[in-house]
């Protein structure tokens, strides 16, 4: 068992971490979940992370579409990764069930990716767009990112909820839209700090060159801790 890897810092505290070794004895990939409301930019963040990290890491992505394969197809169309590194999971109309209550299909997708294109350093698991209560099971991911956006309302950090409060990283996306939708970025940052204590938050505008850099840095740090 491996110590000091990223974990989900819920108030409930430390459960035994998900198994970290593959059946053949090699260390499995770090698994990071991305959740958040519909349209907040989860898929765009995944695409940007792939572009930023693919040259130095062996990567794969699992998407959880609600009723289509659109997210997987977007990633394929954008050619952020070769097609064999992207897998879509269908969620039976319940995206949160597939990442939290019954993670079977997602675990299968993760295992299949490691079998087919492994060894992998990192697997990103993108949830289907859901609500503010959606969080990942610790049996599925080692750390989770919650993506919200400024156009969804600048009161979302204040409202809190499991995703905003407990995710290992909070991403407040689309900062470029703030002036057009009347969102107060300072207030969002302040509320996020208040809700999250010492847990980190970053602001991103994926329209800018290398706009995903703060997220990519955080992911790289998680990976360094994972392999340490």
């Amino acid at each position, binding site marked *: 068992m491996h110590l000091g890897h990223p974990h989900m810092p819920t108030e409930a505290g430390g459960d035994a971490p998900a198994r970290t070794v593959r059946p053949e004895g090699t260390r499995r990939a770090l698994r990071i979940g991305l959740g958040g409301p519909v349209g907040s930019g989860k898929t765009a963040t995944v695409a940007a992370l792939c572009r930023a990290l693919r040259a130095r890491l062996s990567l794969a992505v699992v998407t959880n579409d*609600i*009723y*289509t*394969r659109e997210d997987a197809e977007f990633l394929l169309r954008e050619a952020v990764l070769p097609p064999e590194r992207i897998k879509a999971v*269908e*969620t*039976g*109309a*319940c995206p949160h*069930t*597939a990442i939290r*209550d*019954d*993670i*079977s*299909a997602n*675990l*299968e997708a993760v295992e299949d990716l490691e079998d087919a294109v492994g060894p992998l350093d990192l697997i990103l698991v993108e949830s289907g767009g859901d609500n503010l209560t959606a969080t990942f099971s610790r049996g599925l991911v080692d750390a989770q990112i919650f993506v919200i956006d400024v156009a969804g309302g600048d009161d979302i950090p204040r409202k809190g909820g499991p995703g905003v409060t407990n995710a290992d990283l909070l991403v407040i996306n689309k900062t470029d839209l703030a002036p057009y939708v009347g969102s107060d970025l300072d207030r969002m940052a302040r509320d996020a700090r208040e809700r999250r204590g010492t847990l980190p938050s970053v602001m991103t505008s994926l329209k800018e060159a290398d706009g995903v850099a703060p997220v990519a840095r955080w992911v790289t740090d998680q990976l360094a801790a994972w392999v340490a």
Partner: protein
Amino acid sequence: MGRASDQCGAGGRATLLVLADGRFPAGGHAHSGGVEAAVRAGRVDGVATLALFCRGRLQTAGLVAAALAAAAAAGTDPLELDALADARTPSPALRATARRLGRQVMRAARVIWPGGELDRLAALRPRGAHHPVVLGVAARSAGLGDEDAAYCCAYEAAQGPVTAAVRLLGLDPFEATAVLARLAPEIDRVVADAVRAAHTGTEALPAASAPLLDITAEAHAAWPVRLFTS
């Protein structure tokens, strides 16, 4: 409940509830048991037609699955049963679904009721054996009997489509659950038939088929937009 539970003392009624629970984390929530295709075709449009659909599925796929699960729980060679399940599943899409669900039950059961028989089957069929076969071996590992395993499969044959239909059609959940409750005596009879067949021997296992379920499963697997995997 089942024979084995009486013999070994483990795996009583509460254990059966754990395995039969619709929230048992083995991937079933993403499958509609064919009802999504039936809803799209207009054949299921409310509780009355849902009841007919479930009855048909119970008497065909449900009976076959229940008998395979009972035989596996009684200790029949799971690889032989897996081949018999293949022979009873003409639709490639449904064969893939059955193996996928079997793999997912295997993953859950090996954590919940670990045992050598599950490990052996997992090693021999790493991509998954047929769902009822794995379910029977899992029931055995949980200390449950053949009748218990048959109940899980027969109940699931109706419960899966009912849950999915509630989501697809926005049915009144009380009326939808009443469909299941009214099917209970028929589920009992299917289980009795399945267990009797399993006791007689593998040559007596039922092979009831539902050609329309097979055909629509093939079409459904090719839909670009759908809520359920099958």
